[in-house]
């Protein structure tokens, strides 16, 4: 545990656009330095990605970025973060991902040179290691492709390195379906953290060699999967809320290994990381409805430093191509945040509070993201001796917060879900003190054919 105390230890100081350790980009944007920037995301419409279709794929990305930048120049955001989230074939054939990175980087360069639009490019290769099962996490062609994609894309103009890594997910998926909190903690805080340490140390080397920044990871495959499942009423919202708190332990490891933010958009655990590290974080909420429904539409904005639409296909809407429509929405959202900030921190805090109150009483997942909850979970994490116990502490704190919130009448919990509070609590109270005992126990319970312990340094 590298972080032993909170960078932001009062809920009052958790605020959008403001981070104690802001990040300055090449073109002078200061993320977390008093401004919320739009973070623009997009993806391909229905189209296969192969040698034959690559010319069409390139045209798509060129068209997306040209159209969006034309509008961005008109709307004049204070700066623009563009995320290029690759699609798996682009990481497996890294030259494709690198080529498209170059297209985007060149367009951003032009928009800066001609129109003075500041921008930075986040590149997010895929975690393709799971294409093999059980996966080889630390060598083999998939891992090699990932390395090359990062290295090449960093050389081609990507300035912020991110990934949605999936180490531990092979166990976590089952844990979610079974509503099994100890197995989830094992997946996140034993397997996940070990893989993160490996992965982000490698990325730190690449970033250093290329003079770019490690930005951060996300527990998307864990926390957002749980959220989507809860949204579809497949698992209880309470369970998803506790999982969210636990995911922070895993995502934090990127920053333990040198990532400086902004943590990736879909990491709804980001406010917890922000409290711990003081680094700027991305967020996404209502304006990412194009990518997924959520109970976090407004609250996700309360503490973000960049504001993203997560992903939208390049299809035509009446107002224009969907990515450009969403860019416009992001820019206006950010204008509002920044306007409030122009009126000083107390005005901004009022807006933050409305964003929080908007959602926090209606859903346990939102309740876990109130500034008060965030700081409580963050504090539990930094006080723990190791990642395993940090995970248990995060879960226990989350359960307490939810129970208190419910009892105080601040949080509505569906009748059908209430028994899960006790059920989850019992399941973690029974856990052993030491990580090694926990590992031993879990290796007897989870489906060990799904992963290779050596690949996790176990």
């Amino acid at each position: 545990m590298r972080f032993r105390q909170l960078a932001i230890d009062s809920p009052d100081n958790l605020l959008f656009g403001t981070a104690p350790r802001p990040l300055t980009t090449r073109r002078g944007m200061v993320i977390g330095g008093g401004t919320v920037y739009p973070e623009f995301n997009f993806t391909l419409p229905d189209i296969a990605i192969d040698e034959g279709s690559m010319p069409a794929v390139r045209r798509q990305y060129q068209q997306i970025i040209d159209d969006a930048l034309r509008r961005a120049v008109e709307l004049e955001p204070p700066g623009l973060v563009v995320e290029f989230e690759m699609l798996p074939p682009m990481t497996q054939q890294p030259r494709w991902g690198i080529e498209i990175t170059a297209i985007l980087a060149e367009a951003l360069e032009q928009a800066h040179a001609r129109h003075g639009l500041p921008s930075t490019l986040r590149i997010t290769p895929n975690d393709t290691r799971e294409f093999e099962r059980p996966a080889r996490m630390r060598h083999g062609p998939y891992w090699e492709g990932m390395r090359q994609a990062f290295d090449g894309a960093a050389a081609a103009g990507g300035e912020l390195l991110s990934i949605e890594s999936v180490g531990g997910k092979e166990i976590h998926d089952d844990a979610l379906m079974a509503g099994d909190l100890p197995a989830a903690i094992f997946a996140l805080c034993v397997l996940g953290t070990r893989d993160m340490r490996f992965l982000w140390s490698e990325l730190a080397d690449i970033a250093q060699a290329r003079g770019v920044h490690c930005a951060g990871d996300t527990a998307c495959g864990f926390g957002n999967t749980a959220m989507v499942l809860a949204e579809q009423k497949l698992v209880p919202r309470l369970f998803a809320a506790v999982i969210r708190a636990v995911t922070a332990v895993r995502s934090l490891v990127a920053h333990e290994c040198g990532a400086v933010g902004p943590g990736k958009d879909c990491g709804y655990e980001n406010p917890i990381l922000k409290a711990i590290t003081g680094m700027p974080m991305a967020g996404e909420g209502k304006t990412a409805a194009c990518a997924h429904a959520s109970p976090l539409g407004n609250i996700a904005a309360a503490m973000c430093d960049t504001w993203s639409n997560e992903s939208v296909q390049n299809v035509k809407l009446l107002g224009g191509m969907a990515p450009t429509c969403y860019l416009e929405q992001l820019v206006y959202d950010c204008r509002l945040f920044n306007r409030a900030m122009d009126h000083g921190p107390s005005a901004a805090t009022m807006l933050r509070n409305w964003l929080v109150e908007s959602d926090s009483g209606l859903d346990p997942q939102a309740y876990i993201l109130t500034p008060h909850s965030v700081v409580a979970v963050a504090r539990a994490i930094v006080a723990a001796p190791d990642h395993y116990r940090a995970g248990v502490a995060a879960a226990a704190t989350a359960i307490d917060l939810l129970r208190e919130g419910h009892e105080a009448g601040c949080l509505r919990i569906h009748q059908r879900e209430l028994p899960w509070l006790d059920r989850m609590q019992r399941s973690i109270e029974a856990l052993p003190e030491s990580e090694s005992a926990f590992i031993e126990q879990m290796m007897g319970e989870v489906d060990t054919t799904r992963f290779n312990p050596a690949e996790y340094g176990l």
Partner: protein
Amino acid sequence: MSTLENLGQAIEQGDRNEAERLTQEAIDAGVGPQEILDALVAAMDEVGRRFQANEVFVPEMLIASRAMKQCMARLEPLLVEKGIRPAFTAVIGTVEGDLHDIGKNLVAMMWRGANFNVVDLGTNVAADKFVAAAREHGARVVGLSALLTTTMPAMKRTVEALKADGAIDARVVIGGAPVTEAFARDIGADGFAPDAASAVQLVRGLVEAA
């Protein structure tokens, strides 16, 4: 309440040991294996109904289906003996290039609950693997899952390959978040279901109509 009624309730509650005990009790009492099987399937249908009505979560459904599995282990020898076999075989998998499997796994679980013989090929399954499995198992149904718009073309290729193979007489059904009814029609699939519970009804309908 009769033993079979109790058995049904034990399944619905996911009480696998009790369910297993009651299965044995019914066998011992001379109840026919088909009748016991029907009771199990009916109970799983009820679980499916509750699931579709948002009355239970997946974890509850999961333990019900595990309970059923445990009962089936007891029942299987008798079914074999009487020559009673699952109504038909369904092959399922996520198409090439796609690793999403949560939705597919749910569909497979529900199909098993409906007593289809389910062969799960996993994720990232190439078209020729689907074809080979459908031939090998004499599948009456093939289910394809895709969650990425970029793997939807692989779905199309797979449907075409299955339809082109004269030795295969299977209904091809598809699903996954980006898939629509219209897309299913476009690529020549026989059916589409938006969720796991309706995937059971869909397949029952198609197979009965065939």
